[in-house]
């Protein structure tokens, strides 16, 4: 395939968000080219557990809860028929999800949090005690106190969802170029007119930055933070009835765990602290990180001490100051749009792709994208601490 000179829409980033937006736009008749600097799903989209969690986090902010549920519920509805729509099985399994309390203190908090969440509109959430939790997931150890359980959460294969979108986009004549790195977005007289790549220049009417953690490298005006996470994958084990969960161990280590359809368990969480911002893009692991993640396994599971770890990875998530993504046109620049800053794209990306496409083709999405307006961060350089982790991040968000 020859490298094109011009197109209608350029999407930067072949991750889940880029491909989801690309599919929806191509389906609506736009001429789309997706440019990816590595390969499809090479960033966070291919380095996560495929956890579809409609509501994560434990804060009691009513507005934030509703804001999130608004989209994730709709996303869940969409996921149900998406495999058929894309003609691609991405192993979506509505197996339920749990957020585990590993201390008495957390358990006490859950007893207040769950009724609160129910009250503000998350009708599905259930509080389960230790025994009920062990009935749901029999391999858990005695460290657990109970959990918040939502039966309609689940897991999917993130690679397959990503690729499913890309293939479906191609059916609508979208073109995908991998190994194509964007050197810069060319702006002339306040209008984005094209991109300079290692394979040449392409002119476009609309440029969408969907590079998630890499997005601020091309649009520095919008600050999005990279956050490095690590994960280990076990060999296949028989299917567990409920499996997709989060837990906080020792009050610091937040991590998630899922089981893929193939049977492999995945445990992921924060790696060792990165010293500098650029260190958060590093994708190799230290042996201590693998040891640490493996140790979490042994803490949480009885009887799985002999399971073999067969793979590991590090990947870069993206965070914004308020935990919500940036979606919308970039102020003061024509023809430049951003869809980035997702910390949990799996529960979001399919519906967001649809809404963005509606926004760009009809001017009005079926659910407003206002809460994500990039203006809220425009030119606000956030002085994040050089070294930050979840705890720091949470504190920062609380102060805001």
């Amino acid at each position, binding site marked *: 395939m020859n490298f094109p000179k011009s197109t209608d829409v350029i999407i930067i980033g072949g991750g889940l968000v880029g491909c989801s937006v690309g599919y929806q736009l191509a389906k609506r008749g736009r001429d789309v080219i997706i440019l990816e600097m590595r390969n499809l799903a090479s960033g966070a989209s291919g380095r996560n557990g495929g956890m579809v969690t409609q509501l994560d986090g434990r804060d009691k902010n009513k507005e934030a809860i509703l804001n999130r549920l608004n989209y994730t519920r709709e996303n869940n509805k969409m996921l149900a028929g998406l495999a058929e729509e894309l003609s691609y099985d991405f192993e979506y399994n509505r197996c339920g999800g749990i957020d585990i309390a590993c201390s008495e203190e957390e358990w006490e908090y859950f007893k207040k949090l769950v009724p609160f969440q129910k009250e503000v509109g998350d009708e599905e959430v259930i509080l389960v005690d230790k025994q009920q939790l062990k009935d749901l997931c*029999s*391999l858990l150890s005695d460290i657990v106190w109970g959990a918040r359980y939502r039966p309609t959460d689940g897991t999917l294969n993130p690679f397959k969802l990503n690729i499913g979108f890309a293939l479906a986009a191609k059916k609508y004549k979208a073109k995908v170029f991998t190994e194509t790195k964007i050197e810069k977005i060319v702006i002339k007289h306040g209008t984005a007119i094209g991109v300079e790549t290692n394979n040449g220049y392409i002119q476009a009417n609309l440029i969408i930055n969907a590079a998630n953690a890499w997005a601020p490298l091309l649009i520095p005006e919008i600050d999005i933070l990279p956050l490095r996470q690590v994960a280990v994958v076990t*060999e*296949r*084990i*028989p299917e567990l009835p409920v499996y997709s969960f989060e837990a906080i161990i020792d009050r610091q280590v937040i991590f998630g765990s899922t089981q893929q359809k193939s*049977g492999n368990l995945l445990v992921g969480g924060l790696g060792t602290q990165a010293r500098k911002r650029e260190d958060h893009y590093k994708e190799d692991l230290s042996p201590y990180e693998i040891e640490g993640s493996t140790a979490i396994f042994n803490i949480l599971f*009885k*009887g*799985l001490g*002999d*399971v*073999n770890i067969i793979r590991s990875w590090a990947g870069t998530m993206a965070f914004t100051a308020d935990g919500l993504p940036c979606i919308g046109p970039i102020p003061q620049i024509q023809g430049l749009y951003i869809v980035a800053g997702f910390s949990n794209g799996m529960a979001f990306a399919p519906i967001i792709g649809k809404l963005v496409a509606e926004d760009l083709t009809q001017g009005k999405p079926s659910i407003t994208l206002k809460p994500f307006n990039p203006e809220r961060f425009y030119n606000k350089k956030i002085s994040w601490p050089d070294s930050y982790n979840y705890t720091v991040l949470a504190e920062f968000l609380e102060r805001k």
Partner: protein
Amino acid sequence: MKDLRIKKHPILGEAKFGKKITIFVDGKKFSAYEGEMIASALYAKGIRKLRATSKFKEPRGIFCAIGRCTDCVMTVNGVPNIRTCITPVQSGMRVKTQKGLGKWKK
């Protein structure tokens, strides 16, 4: 009963098998020699099917014999996915033909 152990060999000479021990294969008593790998002790007595795959229940046996391909995994002393081609027998060991991904202890 047949025994495929090679006792005399033109190059390697007389075989020196270890002490005779008893292990349990699918609950039945089974003789093996110390120092032998589980898979080859079974193979010597004609047991070549070591597990059944999870989806199609197809039989699998020794394929690479050096612990790389994981085709020969069985449940040993309650732990699934043990590579039997590189795991030596031990007196009293309980070896089970693994069905699919096996069962993990609760």
